[in-house]
């Protein structure tokens, strides 16, 4: 894992001291809320429905045991004993007191963490593949690149006041596990004629105007990647719509200019950038990459597994993923227990996951955009012991990528922008489809729920998506079908008129029943939907 150097640490410590002073001045009345609000938002502190909410950055979703334990400590000491892991691979605390915020940030800084750039019109936390460094199918580890982008974008003076927020994802395999094309910039590392470089996709996003980012460059050599990203941002910073918040994201600029014209301008800027010598020196790339070297895998670890315990077998089948190293597996801890709140974990569970990472996964954890936790490097011979401990703590639902492994934003239970609650819906669906045999029969099914059009719950990218709307003061839910955040990225379409809470759950059952009836061979839900088309599903739902 990357470790802060003295500059990183100094920047973060200085920011904590600065914020401590700002909070004191706010509490003493020297700053008004209007003056203070932008300052607290720069430190990830929102005012939400019930209290202040703190969003902590987890760079590209990677954590050490010590960092994870600190997240548990914060939940226990300053919050109400739990945290919420989000679709942006971050964690949010819902019950923060302003007077505690500086101490929390100081605690975070002591383990090389912070909440900087988790709000505002700047480059937000860089996201990446949660299996980075472990996946059997990656061509190179994306984390050194995510880290370089993190350093480049941290306090980048030119990009502190962009027209709107800006989200970047980096992946390094053909399978997209990071919703890469739904980011403002999506970067896919590739090899071309033996050389490492990247494809660039610019102008993706969800929110009220969802768009899939078009490819604007099929190969940028690795050592020019930062300059190319900078060129993409410069064109946006200059021409992005600052007059209208709803048209301010880069996706609108790329759409309005057209991909060709936007690309032309980026290339022009890039040609200029190249003359400035802004790319990080090669030694720096090498220095950073060293932090992400493979851990000391046992070279002859066995691939044998005793699967005689049927519950363990189910979990292995569903929640472990092929590792690049023989004898090892990637283990996914589902934070979606039956009837539970997607993404929530108690401080005791957070502590336990930290311990297990230290014990079984070379001290590493990842947060996934589907609100689960990954232990990336588990020896197969340790899986059974690991599973038993997870199971005891309610952390072993064997439902990865199944219908009950849903994404849900905080919705109206916590979020001041919400139109409707999303969590209770996720809970009820999880109860309705509780039978694991039935879930497995339905197979891979990505269910994603947002409480308003901002789409924090990725409803546009759900095989089945749900969007909460306000219908004359009551909660109402629109059903969407056919989205995907994977390499076959697509945007879901609304089926028709909305439903009550129970109505939408019934409609989901209708839709899944139709899938089971229509499915051919080993088609997933999304495949059948694409083949059969919306009309048949509409007919089944609305008659």
């Amino acid at each position, binding site marked *: 894992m990357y470790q802060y150097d003295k500059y990183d640490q100094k920047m973060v410590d200085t920011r904590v001291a600065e914020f401590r002073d700002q909070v004191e001045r*706010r*509490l003493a*009345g020297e700053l008004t*809320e209007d003056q203070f609000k932008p300052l607290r938002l720069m430190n990830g502190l929102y*005012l939400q*429905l*019930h*209290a*202040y909410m703190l969003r902590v950055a987890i760079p590209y979703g990677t954590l050490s045991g010590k960092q994870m334990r600190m997240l548990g400590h914060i939940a226990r000491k300053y919050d*109400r004993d739990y945290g919420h892991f989000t679709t942006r691979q971050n964690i949010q605390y*819902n*019950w*923060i*007191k*302003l*007077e505690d915020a500086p101490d929390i940030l100081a605690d975070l800084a002591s383990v090389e963490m912070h909440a900087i750039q988790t709000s505002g019109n700047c480059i937000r936390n860089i996201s990446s593949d949660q299996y980075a460094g472990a996946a059997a199918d990656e061509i190179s580890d994306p984390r050194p690149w995510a880290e370089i982008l993190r350093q480049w974008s941290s306090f980048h003076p030119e990009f502190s006041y962009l027209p709107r927020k800006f989200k970047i994802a980096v992946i390094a395999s053909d399978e997209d596990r990071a919703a890469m094309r739904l980011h403002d910039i999506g970067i896919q590392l590739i090899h071309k004629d033996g050389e490492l470089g990247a494809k660039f996709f610019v102008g993706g996003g969800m929110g009220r105007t969802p768009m899939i980012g078009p490819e604007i460059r099929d190969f940028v050599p690795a050592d020019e990647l930062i300059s190319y990203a900078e060129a993409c941002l410069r064109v946006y910073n200059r021409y992005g719509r600052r007059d209208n918040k709803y048209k301010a994201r880069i996706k609108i600029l790329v759409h309005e200019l057209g991909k060709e014209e936007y690309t032309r301008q980026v290339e022009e800027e890039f040609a200029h950038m190249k003359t400035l010598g802004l790319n990080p020196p090669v030694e720096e790339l090498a220095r950073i990459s060293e932090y992400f070297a493979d851990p000391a895998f046992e070279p002859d670890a066995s691939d044998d597994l005793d699967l005689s315990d049927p519950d363990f077998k189910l979990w292995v089948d569903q929640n472990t993923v092929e590792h690049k190293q023989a004898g090892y597996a990637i283990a996914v801890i589902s934070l979606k227990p039956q009837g539970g*709140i997607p993404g929530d974990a108690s401080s005791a569970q957070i502590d336990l996951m930290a311990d297990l990472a230290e014990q079984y996964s070379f001290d590493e954890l990842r947060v996934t955009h589907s609100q689960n936790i990954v232990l990336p490097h588990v020896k197969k011979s340790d899986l059974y012991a690991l599973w038993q401990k997870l199971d005891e703590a309610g952390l072993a639902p064997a439902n990865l990528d199944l219908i009950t492994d849903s994404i849900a934003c905080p919705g*109206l*239970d*916590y979020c*001041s922008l*919400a139109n409707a*609650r999303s*969590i*209770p819906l996720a*809970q009820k669906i999880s109860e309705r489809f509780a039978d694991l045999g039935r879930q497995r029969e339905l197979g891979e099914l990505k269910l994603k729920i947002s409480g308003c059009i901002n789409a924090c719950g990725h409803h546009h990218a759900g095989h089945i998506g749900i969007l909460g709307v306000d219908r004359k*003061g*009551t*909660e109402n839910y629109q059903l969407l079908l056919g989205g995907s955040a994977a390499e076959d990225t697509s945007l879901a379409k609304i089926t028709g008129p909305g439903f009550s809470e129970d109505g939408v759950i019934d409609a989901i059952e209708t839709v899944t029943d139709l899938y089971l009836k229509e499915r051919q061979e080993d088609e997933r839900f999304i495949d059948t939907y694409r083949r059969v088309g919306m009309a048949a599903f509409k007919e089944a739902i609305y008659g």
Partner: protein
Amino acid sequence: MKILTGNDLKTGDVTWWTGSDWSRHVEDAVDVGESFEAILHEEEAARRVNVPYAIAAEMTDEGPRPAHIKDRVRALGPTVRPDLTLKPADPEAGNWVI
């Protein structure tokens, strides 16, 4: 009726204007009619409340009930965590929100 709400500056807690002070409980809220601008101003300036605003509510047997569901969630707490609401012992409390 109109009632005033905001958050406590230090703790972020949701609070309601009682006519003389701010309470955690919406039951204590009083009707301020149309003359609330001065209260909002004065109370915010004195830092007894943060970002206060007026909302519509109706009087019921159990006290004022905010007209909008969002303010009812604010008044009670998250419906998905009854233990963290202001009425942890009342399993039916969430129905008041809906």
